[in-house]
Each structure stands twice: as structure tokens, then as C-alpha cells.
């Protein structure tokens, strides 16, 4: 039984081990504040954590009084202090003597926070993004007048599209006053109605690029009527400005390439248009020519007399009809005349003679009674084919 220790004894032993170790007396830690509680007495209780682990922390009010910032939940901090064990709970914790903000860590946090906020506000929305004009004439550049960025932009544009004008709005791009200056210059360029605006700078540390992560700059880009290409730093650096801008270029050179076309491509396009125009108008006139030829070859135009054929035929028909009608009438008439002639012939006295009768004349008067003649009168007897002279020799 003598081998067994009480918990208190063992914890005291551990505490002694901690307290006598120089390593434990001078501990430097970086991490994020969580479970922050500020006691009315001024003592501060919190945890320090990172992705993998966690340690309890407390800061006495005597030390907390010297802080030059207000600790906040989630804040990245650098702390120094000693690590010891709190007997009552057996928990080890760090007794913080100094604490400062972890600049880089906080910038990163701020960046993520702002990115989330602006995204929710719709500043990154695709619908708001403006098209970059294809053939800009006035290209504004908001960047420092010295440095590689402006040099790269000018040389790229001169090489690709030398007919564009470049207007530099010289701006601070890092340090104190940079964000205000960038905002001011974006507004100036926007007022000067540039066709497109390149806003950016060359690569640098995250602190150097920081102005392009500022909310005011984001809003200035969002509010501008001019299409904006962001060009901050090198490939891997994404800034808030990149998310808000209408187009994001990885480098100033890339931004210049996005801003202007290659003039030789444009010349090719124009030449191509010329060819197509000529081809299409030639083709069109050929088609019209064919249509005309086809009309010219039409049967009716080639044989205009055919239009009269029908009428001619009608005329012939009518003529024939009339002629035949006339003939019919004439025939009818002839037949009736023949009848009349026949009838007339029937009553012709000469016809009677033909049948053997004769007419007797005395002194050219027709003798129709025997009383009119006497013996020895010379009579003329008319037969059908001649006249007989005769003498009366007696009456009966």
C-alpha cells in the first residue's frame, strides 16, 4: 500500500516538475483565441488553439492591463508565459504574461471575413460583371508610376495594340494611404470614361498587397462604370479586388493582354470580312443574273404570238359557224323557191300545150268559142313547139 500516492501528491509532484523546468517557464505560443472570458476583476480566461490542438490559458489582470488591443474570439495571437498545473483540476495551462496580435494570421482572418461578407453582399456576383470591350481606345491604369507593373503594361499594349492610348493614374499601392489613393484614382479614371481600367501592382508580401484587400477598394471597383481588370501580384496571390473586378489577371502583363486584342488578328479579321463581302455580293448578283436569264428564256416571252393563238382559233370557229349558218339559210331559201317554181310550172299554159292541148288565135285574139269564128277565117293554132296556120272549112 505504501507504493500508492494520493492524487494531490502526484499532481503536486507534476506541478513541481513543470515549475522547475526552464522550458516550461519560458513558453512562446501562437494560436487562435477561443472560449474567451474576461472576468470583472480583469483576469482573462481563454483557450489557445490551432487546427490540431488546444491549451487552456489565463492572463492575470496585472498583465492584461498592458495589452494594446482588445482580445477577441477567433483572433490570432502571439503569447509568452509559463506553463503550469492548476492543482484543483489537474489541468495544465499557460499563464500568459504578454500577448500581441499575430499580424499575418489576423490579416488572413480579416481577408476571409471580408471575402465572405462581400460575397454575401453580392459584390462578386457574375451578373454584375461587365464585359471588357474588345477594341479599347483609352486604357486607364491605376498603379504606381514606378515599378515593373506599369512598364509591363505599357510594353505589352504597345506590342499588341499600338493604336490604343494609355493613361496612367499614378497611385500609392502599398502602405499608409494606399487604399484611399487607389479609390480616388479609380474614381478619377471612371470619370474620365476610360474604355477599360487596369487596377493593380506587382507581386509582394501579403502586407504589401493589403490595400487591394480593403473594403473601400472593393466598393470602388464594384461601383465603377468602367470595366475593370484587376492585376495584383503574381499568379498565386488572390485579393479581394480580384474577386470584385470584372476580370482578374494573374499579372499586370496578363491584364494588358486581356485589355487589348492583337492588332494583326484584327487586321486578319477585317481582310477576311472584305473577302467574304466580295464573295457574297458576287454570288448574289450571279443568282439574280440566273433568275433573270430564266425569265428571259420563258416560253411566253420567246413566243409572244402564242398569246393570240386562242383568239385566232375562236375567230376561225366563229367564221365557220357563221358560214355554215348562212349556207343553211341559202339552201332553205332555194328549196322553197324550187317549190314555187314547180307550182308555177304547173299552172303555166304552155305546159298544157305540152300535154297535147293547143290555143287558137283569130287576129291575135284567143278563140274560146265557136261563135267567134266563121267559115274561111284564117286561124292560128299554137302548139307547144310551134304555130300552125289554118283555114276554117266548117263548123260542127
Amino acid at each position: 500500500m505504501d507504493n500508492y500516492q494520493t492524487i494531490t501528491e502526484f499532481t503536486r509532484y507534476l506541478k513541481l516538475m513543470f515549475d522547475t523546468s526552464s522550458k516550461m517557464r519560458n513558453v512562446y505560443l501562437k494560436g487562435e483565441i477561443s472560449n474567451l472570458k474576461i472576468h470583472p476583476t480583469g483576469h482573462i480566461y481563454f483557450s489557445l488553439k490551432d487546427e490540431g490542438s488546444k491549451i487552456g490559458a489565463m492572463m492575470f489582470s496585472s498583465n492584461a492591463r498592458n495589452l494594446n488591443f482588445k482580445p477577441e474570439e477567433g483572433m490570432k495571437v502571439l503569447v509568452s508565459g509559463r506553463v503550469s498545473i492548476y492543482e484543483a483540476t489537474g489541468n495544465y495551462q499557460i499563464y500568459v504574461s504578454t500577448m500581441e496580435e499575430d499580424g499575418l494570421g489576423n490579416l488572413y482572418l480579416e481577408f476571409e471575413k471580408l471575402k465572405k461578407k462581400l460575397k454575401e453582399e453580392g459584390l462578386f456576383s457574375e451578373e454584375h460583371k461587365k464585359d471588357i470591350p474588345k477594341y479599347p481606345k483609352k486604357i486607364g491604369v491605376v498603379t504606381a508610376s514606378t515599378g515593373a507593373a506599369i512598364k509591363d503594361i505599357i510594353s505589352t499594349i504597345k506590342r499588341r495594340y499600338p493604336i490604343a492610348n494609355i493613361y496612367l493614374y499614378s497611385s500609392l499601392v502599398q502602405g499608409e494611404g494606399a487604399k484611399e489613393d487607389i479609390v480616388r484614382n479609380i474614381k478619377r479614371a471612371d470619370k474620365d470614361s476610360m474604355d477599360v481600367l487596369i487596377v493593380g501592382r506587382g507581386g509582394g508580401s501579403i502586407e504589401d498587397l493589403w490595400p487591394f484587400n480593403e473594403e473601400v477598394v472593393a466598393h470602388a471597383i464594384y461601383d465603377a462604370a468602367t470595366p475593370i481588370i484587376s492585376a495584383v501580384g503574381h499568379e498565386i496571390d488572390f485579393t479581394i479586388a480580384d474577386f470584385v473586378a470584372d476580370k482578374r489577371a494573374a499579372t499586370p502583363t496578363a491584364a494588358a493582354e486581356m485589355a487589348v486584342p492583337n492588332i494583326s488578328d484584327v487586321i486578319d479579321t477585317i481582310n477576311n470580312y472584305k473577302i467574304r463581302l466580295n464573295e457574297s455580293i458576287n454570288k448574289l448578283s450571279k443568282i439574280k443574273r440566273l433568275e433573270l436569264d430564266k425569265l428571259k428564256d420563258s416560253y411566253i416571252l420567246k413566243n409572244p404570238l402564242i398569246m393570240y393563238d386562242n383568239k385566232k382559233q375562236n375567230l376561225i370557229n366563229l367564221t365557220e359557224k357563221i358560214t355554215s349558218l348562212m349556207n343553211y339559210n341559202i339552201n332553205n331559201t332555194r328549196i322553197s323557191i324550187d317549190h314555187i317554181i314547180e307550182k308555177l310550172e304547173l299552172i303555166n299554159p304552155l305546159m298544157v300545150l305540152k300535154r297535147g292541148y293547143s290555143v287558137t288565135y283569130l287576129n291575135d285574139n284567143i278563140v274560146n268559142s265557136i261563135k267567134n269564128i266563121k267559115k274561111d277565117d284564117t286561124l292560128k293554132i299554137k302548139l307547144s313547139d310551134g304555130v300552125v296556120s289554118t283555114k276554117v272549112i266548117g263548123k260542127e
Partner: protein
Amino acid sequence: MKFEEKIKTLETIISELESGNTSLDESINKYTKAMELVKECDKELKDVEEKISKIVLDNGKVEDFEAE
């Protein structure tokens, strides 16, 4: 007309002419107009006077700028 609009107009006219649906009068007018646009665009592209980069000063003045 802006260069962009000229190019766009050209594209429209060409596709109209290529469709073959335009009347002869209309197509000749369009062709003439398009050829004028081609000439203008061509001129704009080839008239490369040496463009000097400018710097817009705070007082609004514009001066030539040469990158160091």
C-alpha cells in the same frame, strides 16, 4: 461609330448577304456600306501614329509618360 460597333455591323451585314435573302437593291446598298466600314476599320488599324503613354496628373492635366 465605335470600332466595336463597326465590326459588329460588318458581321451582321456579311451574314445577311451570305444568307442570300436580301433584295438586289438592298444588298448593293449594304455592300457599299460594308466596304466603307472595312475601309474605315482598316485605316484605323493601320494609322499607327506613335501613341505616347500619358499620365493624368492630380490637377487633371495630362502629360507624356515614360516608364523608367
